[in-house]
C-alpha cells in the first residue's frame, strides 16, 4: 500500500495535479488515505455561476503549490478566454490571495482530509 503511494507520489507532474478520481459520482478517497499522502492535499473544485463544470472535480495537489497556481490550472482546464478571470472561494465567502500556499488554506478551511474550493469565471475586476 505504501509502496503504491510512493509510486504515485513519485509521478507528481509539475504541469498538472494528479487526478485521483475519474468520475465525479464515484466515492471520494477516504480521509485517512488522503491525509497520509504526505505532500499532497485533496482539493474538490466546484463551479459557480456560468463557469463550466470540470469533469474531474477531485485533484491531489502539492501542499506547497500556491492558490495562484490552482487558478492558472483551472483557467487552462476550462479554457478561459484571455479577458476572463477565475476567482477561487473557500467557505463560499472568502477569496484567498493567490500567493498563499494550498497548505495554509487547507489548515484553515479544510475538513475531513479535503479542501472544497468554489471557482467562478468572470470578466470583472472591480
Amino acid at each position: 500500500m505504501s509502496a503504491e503511494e510512493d509510486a504515485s507520489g513519485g509521478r507528481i507532474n509539475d504541469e498538472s495535479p494528479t487526478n485521483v478520481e475519474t468520475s465525479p459520482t464515484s466515492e471520494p478517497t477516504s480521509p485517512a488515505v488522503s491525509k497520509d499522502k504526505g505532500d499532497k492535499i485533496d482539493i474538490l473544485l466546484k463551479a459557480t455561476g456560468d463557469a463550466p463544470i470540470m469533469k474531474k472535480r477531485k485533484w491531489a495537489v502539492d501542499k506547497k503549490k500556491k492558490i495562484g497556481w490552482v487558478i492558472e490550472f483551472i483557467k487552462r482546464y476550462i479554457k478561459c478566454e484571455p479577458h476572463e478571470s477565475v476567482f477561487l472561494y473557500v467557505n463560499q465567502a472568502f477569496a484567498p490571495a493567490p500567493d498563499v500556499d494550498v497548505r495554509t488554506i487547507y489548515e484553515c478551511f479544510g475538513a475531513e482530509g479535503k479542501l472544497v474550493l468554489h471557482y467562478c469565471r468572470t470578466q470583472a475586476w472591480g
Partner: protein
Amino acid sequence: MSHGRRRPIQIGWLLASITRQPLIASLDFYCLIASQLQMAGCSTYVLTEKEFTANANQLISISNSIGDNWQLHHFKDGDVDCYLSKRLTKDLKLSPSYEGESVLDLEEENEVEDDVNTLSTASVGELCTFEYHVMYSSSYAAPVLYFTAYWQDGHLLSLEDLWASLSKIYQCRLRADRWTFVTQQEHPVLHRPFYQLHPCKTGLLMALMRECKDTQSSHGDGIIRNMLVSWLSTVGPVVHLDIPVQYGISIQDHK
C-alpha cells in the same frame, strides 16, 4: 399644443442633451446605464448602505483583533458616513518584459530587453507605499476601491508602472483588456486624484459570490457572509492588497 403627442421625440432629445456632456461625465453615464441594463438582464447584488456600514464595522473589528491596520473614517455626506482606509508599503517589482510589449514587435522587444538601462530600472524591486480607501457608491449600490501609491522619493505610481507591477497571473487578463481595469478619479471626500477599481461589474461579481454555495449541504443558505470582505478579498490582490485568511476564519466564527 400639439407637442403633447410627440413625447417620445422629446425624451430622445433629452437623452441626446444629456450625452452631450463632457467626455468623462458621459463615459461614466454610459457605464452606469450599462450596469443598470445588466442589472435588468442578469442577477446582480445590491449592497445597501446599512449592509456596507455593518460590514465595514465588522471588518474593522477583525482588523483590530489581528492588527491589520484598517481604519474607519467618518464624514458627513448622504446616508453612508464612513469609509475604510489602509496604508501599506510593498517591495514592488516591475516586470521587465512588460516594456513596450503592446507597441513593439518581437524583434524590437528583444532590443529593449538588451538595453542595460531599461533592465536596471525595471527588474529591481523598489519600495512603494499604497493607500487604499474603500467607499460606498450609491450610484452603483456597491463598494468601490480607491487607491493611490507613491515611491520612496515621493513621486506617484504611474498607470504604466501599476500595469507592469501586476502579478504574473493577472498579466494575461490585463493584456486582453487593460482599459476596464482602473480609472483615475477624484476621491469623493479628499478631492485628490486616486485610482479607482472600476465598479461597473461589482454588483455582478457580488451576485456570483452569492451563488457560490454548497448545493449538497442542507445548510446551504446559512452561510455567514460579509460581502465587503468577500469582494475585497477577490479584487484586492489584483492591486497588491492581500486580505489575510484570518478574515475568512473570523467571519465564520462570528455567528
